[in-house]
């Protein structure tokens, strides 16, 4: 399994973003998608690749079928499917990125890239809070059921304001107290210490990382050259 340095992955991510949004042509876009599929497979994410590959084929098929639909539907649907088709490669690489990167690796990479500490801490906080957040939501959902205001279609339509209040207010209250508790815990462990930070994770860029990056750079140039040949503009 191919393990790529987190910083190189970030660079690749930016490159892929530009590549995908620059190449909306069906054939060139598909070639680009194919390269990303191979990269994800090499990184050991075959399941994710398969899922997005099927999704891509379905969307492409809908796009082709659009021509047989009435004009009004065709117009809206073709733009919608085009937008989704262009987004799939980016989302695929994003899922691969998230599946292959630990939060602590990402934070170590952010420190080594000299990103301001304010951004790094807030960002780390956000990533850490997501699982806690979904747990809180489940608890609130259970409590709502107990009080007879379960999140059902009937309740949403008959008393929407009450439902919204019953979800929003506890979430905000809980979040505020979690913020207090977490910051107390973080300050105790020296988060305000201005000294240079050390990390358990050692980041190193190997030759294979450069190879992958170079491959995508070459692909970038070649695909845009093809686009120039076909459309006469970048």
């Amino acid at each position, binding site marked *: 399994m191919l393990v790529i340095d987190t910083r190189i992955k970030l660079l690749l991510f930016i490159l892929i973003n530009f590549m995908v949004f620059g190449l909306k042509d069906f054939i060139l876009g598909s070639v680009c998608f194919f390269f990303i599929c191979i990269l994800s497979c090499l990184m050991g994410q075959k399941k994710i690749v398969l899922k997005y590959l099927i999704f891509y084929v379905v969307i492409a098929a809908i796009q082709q079928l659009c021509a047989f639909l009435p004009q009004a539907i065709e117009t809206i649907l073709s733009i919608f499917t085009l937008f989704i088709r262009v987004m799939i490669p980016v989302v695929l690489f*994003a899922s691969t990125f998230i599946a292959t990167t630990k939060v602590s690796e990402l934070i170590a990479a952010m420190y080594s890239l000299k990103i301001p500490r304010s951004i790094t*801490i*807030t960002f780390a*906080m*956000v990533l850490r809070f997501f699982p806690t957040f979904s747990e809180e939501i489940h608890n609130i959902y259970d409590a709502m059921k107990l009080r007879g205001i379960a999140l059902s279609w009937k309740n949403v339509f008959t008393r929407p304001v009450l439902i919204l209040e019953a979800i929003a*207010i506890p979430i*905000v209250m809980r979040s505020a107290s979690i913020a207090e508790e*977490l*910051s107390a815990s973080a300050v105790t462990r020296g988060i305000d210490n201005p000294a240079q930070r050390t990390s358990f994770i050692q980041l190193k860029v190997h030759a294979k990382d450069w190879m992958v990056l170079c491959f995508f750079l070459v692909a970038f140039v070649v695909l845009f050259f093809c686009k120039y040949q076909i459309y006469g503009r970048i």
Partner: protein
Amino acid sequence: MSEQAKAVGVSDKMKAKDYITLGIFTVLFFAVVMVCIFASAATVVTFAFGSAIAAIPGGIIYMLMRAKVPKAGSVLLSGVVIGLIEFLIGAGWAVAVGFIAGAVIAELLARIGHYKSFWLNTIGYSVYMMFFALGTYLPMVIMTGYVDDMSTSNGVSAEYLTELHSFMNGTMVVIIAVVTFVAGIVGALIAKGVFKKHFQKAGIV
């Protein structure tokens, strides 16, 4: 950041506690926006106004962030972090740039009011959501241009093209931006009501 703090007369810089508070409310804000966008994507027409729908509940959280951390750089920081997350989940760079650009303007507006003026924060929030809407929908408009390219080679009817442009064009984006702006103001006003009813009593704000 320290120079800014002096300039606006806010005595203290942000500390770890403020970063953590901002981080947590950024997650809330992000979750609300995402739920609204996904819910609106059920039909194509409501999808165009997903950002406007998101602006209404999002107002509560945004205004709470301003009330909890009225310090220099707080708006910008949460904008940058949301932009980063949007980028990481693959929403494309345009959305991230929209969020960051909106946050810069909202930060400047909030600074004029020393981070405490309700109306300046409200307008800042509306601008912030408007830029988010632009970042989300402008790429779609640019794609209609791409369909033009494709059609010249494939011989698609001119009728189709006019219809396409009538649905997704510059005017549509302007409408979306204006609606989002208004929704932002409505969201902030609702937030004010919710603050009075719930948070002030509980001592959250």
